[in-house]
């Protein structure tokens, strides 16, 4: 058998599997850290968006607007090319995590913001009538309810984040997609490489996608 999916090609791919295992682990590592910071940014900015201070609102809206309407690739290019020029040298992993968190954080903030808005206003009023401060009411009453509403779309964002982590391939980030691109080019073995890379991403993303769907169904049922 010859062609892109010949036995030889498959054998060669499997003989170098550690390269892809390495990239796979780095994709998981970067995605996990990216997701963590995404949540931090999303919650902080999402809560700030519910406030009334004009300057803070303008800054938050500007952040959302810029980061949602420009490509992640360009944002990462800026970190990669501009920051060293102004004396800030970051390694590719940091750039990747930062890029993913700032980009996905803008979407997460939207989700947190609308989830909080979806909690009935009576909840806030009831909490303050019981002597809760704004922050206390937020932490103990509003956010726990908002989590239920925001969890399904947030889970979808986690899948997007993992897929978008492939942007690291452009800056030689050593993630799974980087090795899929560079290893296949070096060895001229494309078929098995791309199929197996797809399978590895599916292993990561499919369960989370299914979880998102299940959460959506559950929240519709409970509504």
């Amino acid at each position, binding site marked *: 058998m010859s062609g892109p999916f010949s036995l030889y090609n498959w054998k060669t791919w499997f003989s170098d599997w550690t390269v892809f295992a390495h990239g796979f682990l780095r994709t998981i590592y970067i995605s996990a850290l990216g997701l963590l910071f995404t949540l931090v940014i999303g919650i902080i900015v999402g809560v700030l968006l519910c406030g009334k201070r004009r300057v803070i609102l303008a800054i938050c809206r500007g952040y959302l607007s810029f980061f949602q*309407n*420009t490509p992640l690739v360009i944002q990462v290019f800026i970190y990669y090319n501009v920051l060293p020029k102004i004396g800030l040298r970051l390694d590719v992993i940091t750039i990747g995590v930062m890029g993913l968190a700032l980009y996905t954080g803008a979407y997460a903030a939207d989700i947190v913001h609308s989830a909080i808005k979806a909690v009935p206003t009576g909840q806030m009023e009831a909490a303050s009538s019981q002597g809760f401060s704004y922050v206390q009411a937020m932490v103990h009453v509003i956010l726990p309810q908002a989590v239920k509403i925001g969890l399904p779309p947030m889970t979808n964002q986690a899948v997007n984040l993992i897929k978008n982590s*492939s942007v690291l391939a452009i800056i030689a980030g050593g993630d799974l997609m980087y090795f899929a691109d560079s290893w296949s080019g070096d060895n001229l073995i494309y078929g098995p490489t*791309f199929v197996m890379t797809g399978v590895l991403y599916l292993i990561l*993303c499919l369960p989370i996608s299914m979880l998102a769907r299940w959460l959506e169904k559950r929240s519709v049922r409970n509504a």
Partner: protein
Amino acid sequence: MLENWANAFAAVFTSRILIFLGKGLLNTLYIASVSIVLSLAFGTILGLMRNSKGHVVRWAATLYIEIVRNIPLVLFIISFRFMTKLPALESGIAAMTVFTSAIIAEVVRGGLNSVGKGQWEAATSQGFSRVKTMWYVIIPQALRRIRSPLVSQFVTTIKDTSFCAVVGTAELSYRSKVAMAQPTIVTAEDIIVLYLLVAMAYYVINRIFAGIARKQRGNAMKGVVR
């Protein structure tokens, strides 16, 4: 200090660089618009297939959508670039269409499912056939609800074209990288001005679509019968 910025503008805003980037932008818009049109067609078919009663048809559409949605676009871009003989732009279009169709299929399906069961029952009770119910009752209502997410998808697709930079396609993002390597682009200010210009090009186009999407979301909310 101010002189550096003035020099940076002079270095970036030359006809050579602007024409070079402008052609990149045209390629970006070409890839994005053809991909969107094709994806709308295939995505709608896939969405209808996934909602259909035929087991094999539904199963095939589900399999396609779930696999494609959970794999990064970049993998499709490099696969089409290195495994087909398509020219650069067209291979980008093919990859983006394969990917975006699956996303649009889910939007279409969501829209169809959002129309209440009562509408089906009411139409059937009035003697509408399945196809007629779909065409006259369900689709008009679904369309109003999915218009906004579909326009939002334009923004995503335009942004997604930048992933074609991975394989060196001459769209705006890749060309910004090439422009940066020009001997006239030297200082930090030069690079900042260059990237702000490129970011602004994407921003302005995407903001227009994001604005339309928001307006349509408002319109869709107005006429909803629950």
